[in-house]
């Protein structure tokens, strides 16, 4: 499974790319592989606010569905509208295709996320 350096990760297999007080959120390679062919991504609306660990989106494959949880609390700034018509982008390149861009509410919450090294270890040991 591919793990990209310099991103943060969660135990729910989301990645977070931090840019100042904004962040992109996506699904890890492990997550897209576990789901199989992704057929639909249910996206939130811009300006929706969510707490850390609150479900903000859902991805569906033919045989499974999974909620995506907020790695950190925040407000939705942008959604990746390409996913409406081409949900398979998440299968093709999960790190290039983000799901939402958020404004981080409390940057301290970022400290609780895993580094890429920690996530690799997590994948080896826990999964």
């Amino acid at each position: 499974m591919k793990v990209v350096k310099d991103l943060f990760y969660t135990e729910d297999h989301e990645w977070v790319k931090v840019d100042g007080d904004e962040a992109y959120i996506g699904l890890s390679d492990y997550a897209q592989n576990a789901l199989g062919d992704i057929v639909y991504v249910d996206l939130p609306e811009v300006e929706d606010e969510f707490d850390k660990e609150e479900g903000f989106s859902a991805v569906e494959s033919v045989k499974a569905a999974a909620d995506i949880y907020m790695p950190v609390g925040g407000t939705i700034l942008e959604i990746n509208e390409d996913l409406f018509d081409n949900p398979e982008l998440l299968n093709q390149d999960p790190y290039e295709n983000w799901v939402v861009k958020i404004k981080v509410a409390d940057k301290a919450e970022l400290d609780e996320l895993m580094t890429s090294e920690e996530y690799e270890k997590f994948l080896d040991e826990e999964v």
Partner: protein
Amino acid sequence: MYPYIPNTKDDEQRMLEAIGFNKIEDLFSDIPDNVKLNRDLDLKPSMSELEVANYITKLSKENTTINDLTCFLGAGAYDHYIPSIVGHITSRSEFYTSYTPYQAEISQGTLQYIFEYQSLICNLTGMDVANASLYDGGTAIAEAAFMASNVTRRQEIVISKTVNPQAREVLKTYAHLQGIKVIEVEDEGGVTNLEELQSHVTDKTAAVIVQSPNFFGIIEDIEAIEKVAHSQKRTLLIASVDPISLGILKTPASLGVDIVVGEGQALGIPLSFGGPYLGFIATKKSHMRKLPGRIVGETIDTEGKRAFVLTLQAREQHIRREKATSNICSNQGINTLAAAVYLVTLGKKGLREVALQATQKAHYAMNEITKSGKYKPLFDKPFFKEFAITSSADADEINSKLLEEKILGGYSLGKEYPQYKNGILYAVTEKRTKEEIDRLSSVLEGMI
């Protein structure tokens, strides 16, 4: 001994030996003594087919049927003619002994008829998507209300009292479970009171639910209701419709309805003392993923050939479990086939003809019954195949006397609508003849 159990005594022994047991009881040794039933069930011993058939047939003869009587009873279940072909197709056991088409490659028959059924319901209602059906008209209303609550994230439903009282009861049972508030709007002269409706529609309203033709048979002014419902942003309009009426009436889609539901029994399904019937639900494409129940979609197989398959399953309980749009797991299967066969048998012209004849015969009946003045129309509004009349006589007494004359009289309105005590709702389908209607009116005439 048991025609449905093929293993012989010898088979039994050989199988037990193979798995290393002496007797059948050993296979139940995992059931602890404290719950084991150490006696025979208190039921009759097994019987031959002939004995069972005799007994059940005898029970059936203790009922008086719509073939013994002339039926003017409706109120949600209707005596429309069922073409012979419907029963012949639904009794093909390749259809009725199969299950939910999980294995698409050997279930194309079921999958395709469901796809055709969905298409027919969409064509009839004008909507974009229909599911593979729900239990009945009442639960379809309740499911639609849950769906609206889910879409809008609101907890109030406003429903007209001109919606079938049974369906409203089902809705209230369901709504209570999720803490959804149900507000009922009174009728005014047999139709939804628009002013009262408007007063209840707020930014908390998930949906407005109406029925047209309504429980009294009257065609509601959906255009006006639509304006009220949609006066609040995001509030949905749910309409319950009689599919036969769509042979002549405007489609719900053209009137701005967001979710269409209804009871499909009239589409080739026998009365059967109330079930099994068929609930249908259809909506706009934007709400497609919030629909409850099974949905069939078109796709291709490995060779690129057209094929059908259950789809959008991530909404459903077997995948989504506690996050499913509904717990529903079955559809009405063979009854959706009946409805599809009925609709294609009648086709473009036939459904219209059935609706037209029902309209004309119902209006003829209304005129005949009320012309002497002993019986009066309860309402003065445009109706389809049902109409309410009232008189000085008690409705139950009228019905008892009609029964003596082999007529199954109308539905007595007084219990559900105390303000219409003595009111009777008559249903007249295309099956009724002038002679039968004339006899009804003359027997009624002689009563008062």
